[in-house]
């Protein structure tokens, strides 16, 4: 079985499991909403000066959401020991990881599709003229978040206190994603929108480096 096919089967399985209950998506969307609304109390969101904080705030909220919602992708498996079954199946270990990365990417993107309009309304930013470019930046940033996040979720699921541990491992490692995505998004939401090449290339490079690292070293996380 090829890697792509094995990974797509895992993705399909993850999506099916999630769409039965919508547990992850519901909690993530509500969590990000709460964070975005809470941030509005810490400064005056109608002030154009403070609207510059919007992109950063959006990405902080997404990073926090990621550090909470990525954990279940492995703890769910542990509840019924289904990870052992996945490991026994005749596929590459990296296919499991890749499938989970892609599934988590899909969940996060779905959550963003719901949240972006709400964010635009609440913080009075115009996203329609730059929608295509903005989606591209969101995709690259979220891919970085999903890649490192899934690998670190696999790491922390093998430790005690895993729910507390994942944000500790994940958030500092995501600093480059936070800076690059925030700057790229801010460039797009400015008065004269502009897609920063530097940050897009940086984000793409980040995703590439960590996907490669996951491919090289991810399999070790699934040993017994």
């Amino acid at each position, binding site marked *: 079985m090829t890697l792509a096919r094995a990974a797509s089967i895992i993705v399909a399985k993850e999506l099916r499991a999630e769409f039965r209950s919508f547990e992850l998506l519901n909690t993530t969307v509500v969590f990000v909403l709460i964070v975005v609304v809470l941030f509005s109390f810490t400064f005056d969101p109608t002030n154009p000066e403070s609207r510059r904080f919007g992109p950063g705030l959006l990405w902080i909220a997404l990073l926090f959401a990621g550090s909470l919602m990525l954990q279940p992708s492995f703890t769910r498996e542990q509840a019924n020991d289904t990870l052992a079954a996945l490991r026994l199946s005749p596929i590459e270990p990296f296919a499991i990881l890749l499938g989970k990365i892609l599934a988590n990417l899909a969940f996060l993107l779905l959550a963003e599709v719901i949240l972006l309009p709400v964010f635009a309304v609440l913080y009075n930013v115009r996203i329609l003229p730059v929608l295509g470019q903005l989606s591209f930046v969101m995709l690259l940033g979220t891919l970085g978040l999903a890649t490192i996040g899934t690998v670190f979720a696999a790491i922390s699921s093998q430790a005690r206190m895993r729910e507390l541990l994942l944000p500790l491992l994940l958030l*500092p490692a995501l*600093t480059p994603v936070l800076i690059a995505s925030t700057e790229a998004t801010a460039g797009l939401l400015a008065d004269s929108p502009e897609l920063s090449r530097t940050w897009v290339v940086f984000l793409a*490079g980040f995703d590439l480096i960590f996907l490669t690292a996951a491919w090289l070293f991810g399999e070790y996380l699934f040993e017994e």
Partner: protein
Amino acid sequence: MNDMDPQTDHSNRTPLWLTLLQFVALAALAFAMWQAWRQVNAGARPAGNGSWMALSQLAMLLGAVILPMLLSRTYRAGGSDYLVLFMMAAAGIAALYIAPTERTMGVIQRIFYMHLPSAASGFVALITSFIASIVYLRRRQPKWDWLAVSSAEVGIVCFTCMLVTGPIWAHPVWGIWWTWDAKLTSTFILWVLYIAYLLLRTLIAEPERRAVVSAVFGIFAFLDVPLVYLSNRLWRTQHPAPVIAGGPNSGLDPLMWYVFLTCLCALLGLMIILVRQRYRLEATRHAVEEMNLEAQLREARSGAR
């Protein structure tokens, strides 16, 4: 019952007097920090040659690290330990009395002889940890895991030294303790990541699992470092550009160079003997774990009979 009974084996216990000595060393450290604080508050341009500052650095290093080790009966000091002790003393004296005082910054600049070498030895230690993690994943010999954790821990200590000496220098020179500049931010993130690495290790009980999982995390954390640096670099930067080999007008006074190299060698040597000592500790822990397992097995067997 048998000679491996943990009840009768005292060799792993720290003697009381050594603990007390370590408290004394900690007090020396606190005193040193207080002196450094006083220097900073005094505008860091005291009369004389700023000997308190450098002396307190010396006290900090000698008192806190080496002397308890050398005096301990459980640690057999070798030639290299005395060599490093000598180098540390030489480095302290060189930084304090031999190096010329910098023209604009004054005495406070002498902290550089501690700041940059500890950063360098920290980086060497973390690179060692990174390489040891990769080799462990390929070869699966526990010794590489021991090396990885030992050098990561010592690297954190070096980075802590750097992160403490940096603001002490920055406050009088830049007028602020901390700034969100590329070098500062990335080393700080690096420090936090490796603290998370040690934390992760404490939360996994099974030795082999711990070794594998933390090796993967160590690799990811290390790969992140250049990216953190680059992202901050593209964003904003304030840290002084490299003075050594930086550009046409950069460069140190030759005497400053010699002092700097002395300090660099001394701190690298210190880092190496600390890693070696920590590695021995990890190996001993491993041996104790195995003995405990063996004893439990034996007990279970005799109980079953």
